[in-house]
């Protein structure tokens, strides 16, 4: 353990661990799952970090406002952690925060697309969108109100997303939709994150890169299954979608998968050598739909990440692992709350909510 690591992580480690300790425990989750109305849910969330939801619901009864608050909270938590770090560590946290920025950017572009290209009324929906600066200075209102796609490119000209936006034309958007643009934003974010992570010192770099490699592999597999199998995308287009890093794109199975006609592509063969457990799970899921296969991979990814982050929590405390774990657990907790809100609001039964939430 170096003095530098100790200095850097002693405070943040204590702070984040105390926040992790204050997260909703199993007993509380059980109580939440028993709630039958949103008022009951928010009553149970009193004295937790989610207490403001009660006030928002009381003032509006609007669950989209609640989701907007959850998103804003997530942004705030990321920026808080960035403030607790410095130098390249802070830049790494900011690069991770860009994931939220990209999600917000995709949402606002979707609104624009609905309004301008599909001529749908987006009405009050812009009101739920996060409109403050996240990392880059983006004028969200300008994008939502853009008359043409070129105005969006112009609005993003001083951000890292300028190149991705400029590489796509208005006519492409009109004919093919937003798929290419959205995946380009994702790749831009991931590429920026990787380049910042490469500057982290020794053990931190190894740790974060290992996590990102695993994420790249599994997200690439998800894309290969979803778009290569479900939507029959040709090999050259699939290759563009791949996130950098990881090992799956360097394998012969990957090359074979791209070369195989879409109808004959086999996800099991793709992952068989590198992720035998996943291949078995895909095999066991039988002749299920591509959606189900995607879900299997997503659940596998979630389990892997949960295992990794819990191991980090128990392991060496003075590393970037505590930050990764904290974000993972917060994200998971937010997802549970979101499922509960939606489940109760739309009248799902308790087992269905449990399936999504826990």
């Amino acid at each position: 353990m170096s003095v530098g690591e100790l200095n850097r992580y002693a405070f943040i480690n204590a702070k984040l661990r105390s926040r992790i300790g204050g997260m909703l425990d199993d007993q509380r989750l059980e109580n939440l799952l028993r709630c039958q109305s949103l008022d009951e849910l928010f009553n149970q969330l009193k004295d937790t970090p989610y207490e403001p939801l009660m006030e928002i619901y009381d003032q509006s009864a609007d669950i989209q406002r609640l989701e907007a608050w959850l998103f804003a909270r997530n942004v705030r938590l990321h920026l808080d952690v960035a403030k607790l770090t410095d130098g390249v560590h802070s830049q790494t946290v900011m690069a991770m925060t860009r994931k939220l920025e990209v999600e917000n950017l995709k949402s606002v572009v979707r609104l624009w697309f609905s309004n301008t290209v599909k001529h749908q009324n987006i009405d009050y929906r812009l009101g739920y969108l996060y409109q403050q600066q996240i990392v880059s200075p983006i004028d969200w209102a300008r994008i939502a109100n853009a008359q043409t796609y070129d105005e969006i490119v112009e609005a993003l000209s001083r951000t890292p997303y300028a190149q991705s936006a400029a590489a796509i034309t208005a006519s492409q958007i009109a004919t093919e939709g937003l798929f290419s643009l959205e995946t380009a934003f994702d790749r831009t974010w991931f590429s920026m994150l990787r380049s910042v992570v490469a500057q982290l010192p020794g053990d931190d770099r190894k740790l974060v890169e290992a996590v990102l490699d695993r994420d790249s592999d599994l997200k690439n597999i998800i894309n290969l299954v979803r778009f290569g199998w479900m939507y029959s995308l040709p090999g050259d287009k699939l290759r563009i979608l791949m996130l950098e890093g990881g090992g799956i794109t360097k394998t012969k199975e990957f090359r074979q998968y791209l070369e195989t006609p879409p109808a004959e592509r086999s996800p099991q063969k793709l992952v068989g050598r590198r992720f035998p457990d996943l291949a078995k799970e895909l095999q066991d899921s039988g002749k299920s739909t591509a959606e189900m296969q995607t879900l299997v991979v997503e659940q596998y990814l979630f389990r892997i990440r949960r295992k990794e982050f819990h191991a980090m929590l128990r392991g060496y405390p003075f590393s970037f692992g505590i930050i990764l774990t904290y974000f993972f657990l917060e994200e998971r907790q937010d997802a549970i709350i979101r499922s509960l809100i939606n489940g109760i609001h739309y009248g799902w039964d308790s087992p269905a909510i449990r399936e999504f939430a826990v």
Partner: protein
Amino acid sequence: MNVFTVPMKLLTAVVLDEATDTVKKELLRLGVLDFIQVSRLAPEQAARLSVQKQQEEPGTYSNLRSRVETLFIQAGRPTPSSEKLNPDTMKPLEVGKAKALVDKVVGDLSTIREQQKQLSQSRIRVDELLRYITEEKLQYLDIRIGQVGKGNDALIRSRLANQAFVLIQPENWKDFVLLTLKRDRQQVSPLVETLQWMENPDGGLQHMAIPLLRSELEQQMENLGKANAEIKERITLRIKEDMESLETLWCDLRLHELLGEIALNFSHTRNTTIFSGWVPQSESSALESVIRAAANGACVIEWTDAKYLPREEVPVAVEDVPLLRPFQKLVDNYSVPEYGTINPTPFVAISYLVMFALMFADAGQGLVILLLGLLGLRNSKRNPQLKPKMISADMYRLFMYLGTASIVSGVIFGSYFGFALFPPLWFDYHAAVVGHESTGRDVYSILTITIWFGIVVIGLGLALNWINLIRKKDWFHLLLDKNGLVGGWLFGCGIWAAFAFVGSGYKQLPQGLFLPIAFGFPLVFLFAKVPLHRHMERRQGKEVEPKGIGPLVMDALLEWIVDVLEIFSGFLANTLSFMRVAGLGIAHVSLMTAFAQMADLAGGGVAGIIVLLLGNAMVIALEGLSAGIQALRLNYYEFFTKYFTGRGLSYNPIALHPHAGRQIISRP
């Protein structure tokens, strides 16, 4: 006042099945029995006993009660107090009907909430338009000024109902002003055209329209706010409509929940019900009378004294002394004392107050803390429905005690808001800290006082431990534990040697044979701890791992080294830890002196007074908090560790009042 935990008795009772319901209600009403399962007392009989199956799933009543409580919160009404719970007026509860009542109210509220949601979405629309107008982002807006050839303003509004828009017709204008979002142009333009909109070519009108539109939008926002408030009022009214039924339901649910808990502890034979539980000795005769009356005398009651059962199985209650409640909370926060041992509360009250007073000796600032406590307590008494967030009524009481302690020590040491306004009763603390030799005391004198204080506290802790061990008849630990007699003797000798060393000008330890003998004998004696412990365990019939002489000597040696290190370094560290009391006291004086000098530098007058006011406020807040925490720390780590094992089991009777528990009101 009893300084030990309250003596307990174990009740075992058998009643006829037909009396069970009456007995349950009476037990609940009295609320003194901490139940234990009969099968735990007589496991060999457990198979012959049965537990009555509950009518409802576990948690049904509490879940429903929690739903009702949520409705109370929404209506801004407190949960009914436990005084409203009356087992005699309890009605049989039909869960289906109860659920239907709650579902009906919740369903009606959902309908109102849906309207509230639509209002919220309207607010978003208006808010966006208002924001663009206010921020002069007119490029996102379309302002049309003109007249319609067909229809009227009502028709325009109905056509644009799904858009964000504002339509006004200013006074003395023939034209309408229509504000919409530019991005909606493709939907709005065809709608407007069908009304044969004729645009006024006068471009200057647009500038005149903007302030009017802004004012209209602000008015709309205000109206929407009012409408939302009305909806919230409707929610409250809807709940209040059924408030009486809901309150009755809440009481019934709570009673069924509590009676269900009692029933879970009842075991049954074919015709009888058997139950068992702990009760404070002072309550035993009242409890017996109640059971006999409820069972019409057809019962068998057997009492077992706590001394016949393992100490760790006996729940612990302590006498409730209202004056000491804030300190009882400090003890509760730490742990529960073992049954039959000393309740630390009265000792904590004294040591905590003395420690705080030594660290925060200022009569003026103490008065402020006392007044804060009084005001807070008055406020919490006036608004009992307000749930305390951070500071409870007991905390305010603690403020009052601490303030009074500071006043007393401030008078003793002559400090009033950092100034020596009156002569001290003992010595001038400020003068001693800043080095005025006239007092005959200096910083070392203060350190010495606090070390002596620490020795007294640790010594008291050891004495309390010995009393506890004697009551537990734990002679082994009384003699050989580090906090036992050997440890105490070594501590005493260490103090004597240390003061003799200081007395010699830090030159030599006491001469002669006494010191080597005083240290030597106990240390040799301590070496016998491991073999003696093995011998005692063997005599008690416990299984002891067989060991040869070599491993046994090594065990004894290792244990001895650890004990010696713990005794010497532990007691030394514990004693020196009390120097923090002096440290904080000195810091307090230094800070006040610094603020007095800053006030002088500010030239006195109003500026000086402001500096002094801010300085005093800062010292009260920060130093007060710091002294409070350090006093707590010294109690928890230096005092409690000497005698308070915290291995007790809390006394939790099933009672109507939710806070019935460890503290009991002693009956004459």
